[in-house]
């Protein structure tokens, strides 16, 4: 079975994000970049599927040369090969990204594609579904469980207050949610072997954005806390503020 996992390099979730001078990108200075946490579930699921059924796992990303680091991490986790589709400059929108990925996937013709439900930088959560649509494949989004048997898949997706159980045919695109599995750490053997595994590079071609990022706005600074008073006298002031300023009562 040919399995593909799509991954992305993103700022670590505990990074302090600053908007860059252009007002529409982030300042990478002092930020630690990591493999998108949801993509870890995708890579883990790809590896588990390979361990159960055999085959190869390829990891693929679209990004700058620095993304090699995240690809090597996936190789150290156990993926067999990696593909870096080089793209620099403004980030591709979900349509453009799904289009270039679909073209590459036609070439690689995997049976299964796993990706994270969303990348934690833009939180767009569109690429997997768009990709399935472009390819005309089945799709399970937000997978909480996933199983393969006899050429078809079954899985569940967490929905408000319950679960949806879904069945589908192969090939398929599965977008992975937290809880699907427990991603492994790259072990030292894996780290040693990662260097020797193939990492292919190619250029992204013909990508055209349909959307333009206009501006990034950081959340407003939190207002400073104030002490309204002490003891029973403070209650009336607090009630007033809750009713008339915060309007929560």
């Amino acid at each position, binding site marked *: 079975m040919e399995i593909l996992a799509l991954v992305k390099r993103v700022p670590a979730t505990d990074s302090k994000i600053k908007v860059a001078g252009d007002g529409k990108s982030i300042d990478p200075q002092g930020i630690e970049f990591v493999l998108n946490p949801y993509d870890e579930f995708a890579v883990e699921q790809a590896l588990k599927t390979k361990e159960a059924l055999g085959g190869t796992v390829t990891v693929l990303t679209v990004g700058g040369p620095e993304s090699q680091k995240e690809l090597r991490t996936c190789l150290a986790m156990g993926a067999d090969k990696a593909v870096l589709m080089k793209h620099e400059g403004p980030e591709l929108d979900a349509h453009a990204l799904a289009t270039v990925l679909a073209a590459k996937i036609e070439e690689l013709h995997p049976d299964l594609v796993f990706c994270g439900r969303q990348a934690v930088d833009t939180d767009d959560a569109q690429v997997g579904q768009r990709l399935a649509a472009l390819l005309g494949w089945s799709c399970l989004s937000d997978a909480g469980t996933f199983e393969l048997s006899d050429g078809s898949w079954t899985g569940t997706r967490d929905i408000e207050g319950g679960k949806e159980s879904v069945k589908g045919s192969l090939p398929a695109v599965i977008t992975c949610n937290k809880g699907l599995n427990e991603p492994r750490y790259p072990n030292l053997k894996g780290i040693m072997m*990662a260097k020797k595994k193939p990492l292919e590079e190619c250029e992204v071609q013909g990508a055209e954005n349909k959307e333009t990022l206009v501006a990034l706005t950081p959340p407003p600074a939190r207002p400073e*806390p104030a002490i309204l008073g002490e003891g029973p006298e403070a209650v009336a002031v607090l009630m007033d503020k809750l009713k008339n300023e915060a309007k929560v009562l």
Partner: protein
Amino acid sequence: MNGEEWTNFRLTEEQEMIRDTARKFAEEQLLPQAVDIDLEARFPAETFRQMAELGFLGLPISEEMGGAGMGYFAYCLALEEIAKVCASTALGLEAHISLCTYLIDSFASEEQRRKYVPDLASGEKLGSFGLTEPEAGSDAGGTRTVARRDGDSYVIDGRKAFITNANHAGTFVITARTDSESSTGTKGISAFIVERDTPGFHIEKGETKLGMRGSDWANLVFEGMRVPVENRIGGEGEGFQFFMKTLDAGRVAIGALALGIAEGAYERALRYAQERMAFGKPLAKQQAVAFKLAEMATRIECARHLVYHGCRLKDQGVEAFAKEAAMAKVVASEAATFCADEAIQIHGGYGYTAEYHVERMYRDAKLCEIGEGTSEICRLVISRRILAD
């Protein structure tokens, strides 16, 4: 602050990956239990199994001997990351690798290495190192444990004190006198490998500790313990130098561990100082606090330079690096106690509580000024080297 900012020691891709894996492992697996294992004085045996699976227990040991062959620098980067979060866990790992496994791998015969190192490198067995005695610490020449030759074995009597990993270890390296019971000095001291289930070998509960409470320790008691001659490392009387050379490399690793504590405390203090408001502005904007942070960051960078330099010397195979190793340990361990102390001060009352971690780091840091050569012994080593030149 992290390694990237430090351009003189560029990390290889593998070293970077090991550091990142150790960091992630520490934050996800060690942080949630760090306070509890300290309060309960509980050795996290399951964590050591996890680290063994990842290959950490044989990180710098050669592939031929079942390790990962990643070098001392990569190993120290991992120790640093683990110690940032849980120094107790780092200490158990350090004693296993730097003291026990390295001693056997560096000084034992080919046959002994093949017999013991692979099980240690895989984590099948945990290692422990018994040098200190109730009446012989810095003055190791005062060793009282005696090994009497009897046919093709030795009969060993004596005790070892404050021995890290003792309750959980399967393989021990120990020192004992092979000259005469009444002698003192270092010439008649030999080294032995002792297996846990040897008759006459007892483990006696360790004392309650100030810090490093999640690290295991105990006293070793030998009563007519019979050890085959083939378990002696090197010739009679050669053991002391093996232990001293092992401690040189161990000091670099303790330096890395102390560096991790210093950074862990600093990072917490920095975050707190930027968030906590007093007198209408963040603590970090008050000069009294800003200067503390500046001093902490400076001492951390000093420590990092010396520790990484020590690692490089070790990886380059430089034999005579006792001075540099001692310098790294002194500076890093004193940076750790300083930074942990200041981190508590910056946190104020919160810093005095277990929840904020820095009080644990303060207690843990103190060990680094004592274990594997006190600061005074390190300064003695440094002074002897510079005065001999």
